[in-house]
């Protein structure tokens, strides 16, 4: 028990250091007077640059929201500021009349949730095996994990369509949507990296005590790498939630389409006939964007450069 506590403490310490590394100001040493001076010299310019950048990055989102509330599209400069006379919730009702927003969100949720479930369950198993177990063929599995991340989707597009839609008849099904993304190799890599950080003596000790590997994984390893699970969920979430091409190919039935697909179909087919097409499109866009943005703002501490960096660079 004390071993585990020590490991937990060590792990927490690592996390803390990771976070600190993101804040140069918090670095305890190594930055003397010259660095402070340097920072003062560069601070103002950098700050202005970042502020201009942030405006360019955030303005479209602000404008998306304003536009979704306008009775008639106001594209003049004044239209960028809310005008109470021109505000309405009607666009949301309109888009909901054309495409069932709630059903779209639920479908997106099932698609994304399925991918995350497979990735986390099987990713933890293989990540743990690669980091802390010694077995024949480990090098092969590891090499495979690295190679898989380089397979271009363009090559898989046609054969997967032939297999999943034509041969297996999985069109218009959640399984057909999930299958090509089911296990995210980047997440496997993240799990392996985190499990590698745990001392192998911890696991040797548990094995000598007669614990089964599954029990070690469940009771010792997983509780120690909870941050890895959050990171992997966040990394995995972006893909299927935002994916358009594959579910677009697989689903023709609107009752199973993720929101991204039904909104895209609305943009390219239906919008022209609506009274305020942009209002409706932007209202749908807000509904599609909100869950992802909320999730990432809530978990932004976990979604930092060190995590992304370790996931792609090792």
């Amino acid at each position: 028990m004390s071993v585990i506590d020590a490991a937990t403490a060590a792990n927490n310490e690592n996390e803390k250091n990771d976070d600190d590394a993101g804040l140069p100001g918090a670095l305890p040493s190594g930055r003397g007077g010259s660095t402070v001076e340097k920072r003062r010299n560069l601070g103002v310019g950098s700050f202005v640059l970042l502020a201009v950048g942030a405006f360019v990055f955030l303005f479209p989102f602000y404008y998306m929201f304003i536009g979704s509330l306008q009775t008639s599209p106001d594209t003049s400069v004044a239209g960028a500021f809310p005008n109470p006379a021109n505000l309405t919730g009607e666009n949301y009702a309109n888009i909901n009349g054309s495409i069932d927003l709630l059903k779209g969100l639920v479908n997106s949720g099932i698609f994304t949730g399925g991918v995350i479930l497979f990735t986390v369950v099987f990713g933890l198993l293989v990540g743990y095996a690669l980091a802390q177990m010694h077995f024949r063929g480990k090098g092969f599995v590891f090499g495979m994990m690295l190679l898989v991340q380089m397979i271009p989707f363009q090559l898989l597009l046609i054969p997967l369509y032939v297999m999943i839609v034509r041969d297996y008849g999985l069109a218009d099904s959640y399984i057909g949507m999930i299958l090509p993304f089911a296990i995210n190799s980047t997440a496997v890599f993240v799990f392996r990296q985190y499990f590698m950080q745990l001392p192998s003596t911890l696991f040797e000790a548990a094995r000598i005590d007669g614990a089964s590997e599954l029990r070690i994984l469940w009771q010792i390893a997983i509780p120690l790498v909870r941050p890895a699970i959050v990171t992997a969920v966040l990394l995995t979430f972006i893909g299927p939630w935002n994916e358009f091409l594959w579910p677009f190919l697989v689903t023709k039935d609107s009752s199973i389409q993720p929101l991204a697909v039904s909104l895209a179909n609305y943009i390219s087919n239906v919008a022209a006939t609506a009274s305020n097409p942009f209002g409706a499109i932007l209202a749908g866009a807000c509904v599609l964007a909100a869950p992802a943005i909320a999730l990432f703002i809530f978990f932004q501490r976990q979604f930092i450069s060190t995590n992304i960096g370790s996931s792609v660079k090792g």
Partner: protein
Amino acid sequence: MSLRSSDGGPAAGSPATGVPVGRTADQRPAPRKRKNILGRQPLGLLFSAPYVIYVLAVLAYPLGYAVYISFHDFFFTAPRVKVDRPFVGLDNYITVLSDPAVQRSFANIGVFLVINVPLTVGLSLVLANALNRVTKLRTFFRVSYYVPYVTASVAVVGVWLFLFQQNGLVNALLGPLAPNPSWLTNSWLAMPTVALYVTWKQLGFFILLYLAALQNIPDELYESASVDGGNKWVQFWNITVPGVRSASVLVTLLATITGANLFTEPYLLTGGGGPDGASTSPVFLMYQKGILQGNPDVAAALGVILVIGVLLIALIQKRLVGGKEA
């Protein structure tokens, strides 16, 4: 992707951690180690099995299947119908390469890459560098840069359509300078506008990559440079830029792959292929030829050519950006 280079470390490290443990165990129960030819924890095989099966069935097999399809006269049939699909050699490749629409789509991707890759590398490095220096509002800035990246392209395409339409806000601000025909219906500007959109959308991810790389540059380098009287530009060009070189290789590679995968953005922003095919992407043609027109063999050949093209560009970029060390 840069896993190859940097992961020599951890990869070599994992057996290395195993070896000392194995040795110490060797001193006492030596026979126990040799007993199991599947390794000390053969259960690891079982733990890896679902992943390995998945990769073989859903990724490796289709990869080979794509090449097979591209060399045969392949057409869609009802499930489990046995038909003759004769080998046609390079016929599909010849069909694809002699198609003017395909040639146009590769030219479009060329325009896209020429705009997108330098902009992505330059802007993300400069912004990451600025983020690394500023302490106030750091979290706010970081979040604002990755908000477009985490949002569905389909959602933000809506607001770009709104901003860049004929009488949209952008043209209202430009006044008489507004292009005619407007951005997305202009055969000269359609592809650059798509490239600009994708740069904006993806930049947050690349900023995070550069931020990670910047953490690895030792502060002492900057300190000794400032002692030697190097100003901030000298420091940026002589320390920061070389210091993040391997990240730059990765960023150019990933940006190129994004470009080659382009589908959603031209499809929605420019209503399919844009004016006169000006923003048609190869993946859009794969969808059109393979799935809408029922020629999966031609589409598969296009996919193979596209991937070979990406590999060639990646090799060239690695030479250019990577220098000798990468």
